């Protein structure tokens, strides 16, 4: 069966510090991978998605970046965090078709 891991579960970082969140998927090959953010009281915002190694599409301009160094590894990064980067970050995977996404447990990021 497939599983998706995210870490860390919670993170408190000062403004201006770097960020690295990691997501790995097991039990499937060549998945589509996604990073979402849920800000407090808001819906899910798609940040990045990837259809293969080294292939990253950005949905919104921001100070975040994503990388996919391996088939089942997806990393969300920032060089300098902003207060507005606080939120709940979710990684997801899917295989087409059908496009059902399976989400990781999430990372709660608080930027102070």
């Amino acid at each position, binding site marked *: 069966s497939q599983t998706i891991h995210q870490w860390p579960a919670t993170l408190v970082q000062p403004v201006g510090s770097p960020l690295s969140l990691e997501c790995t998927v097991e039990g499937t090959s060549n998945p589509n991978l996604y990073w979402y953010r849920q800000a407090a009281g808001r819906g899910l915002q798609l940040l990045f*998605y990837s259809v293969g190694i080294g292939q990253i599409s950005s949905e919104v301009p921001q100070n975040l970046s994503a990388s996919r160094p391996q088939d089942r590894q997806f990393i969300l990064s920032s060089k300098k965090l902003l207060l507005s980067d606080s939120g709940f970050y*979710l990684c997801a995977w899917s295989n087409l078709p059908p496009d059902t996404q399976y989400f990781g447990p999430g990372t709660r990021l608080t930027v102070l």
Partner: protein
Amino acid sequence: DQQVKQNSPSLSVQEGRISILNCDYTNSMFDYFLWYKKYPAEGPTFLISISSIKDKNEDGRFTVFLNKSAKHLSLHIVPSQPGDSAVYFCKAAGNKLTFGGGTRVLVKP
């Protein structure tokens, strides 16, 4: 430009009654729709889906209805249970992947 909208941010229903969640979309290229359920501090979990070639899909207590002419879909939960209290997101898939803003459901015992 919100292509998928859930106009009711919250819904309160008595246990045993029906919960009806609504979702409207604007992009006629969407051809597959999904509902997800999300508890606080957890990732969303897939609940039920429907292809645009159908107008209804049923799975236990959950039924999704699709009205393509109105670009509207709804999720019915019957009977509602306290464990159904969560945030529900509709998602449209096609040329893009777009989530609605979510509807928070509270089922009162």
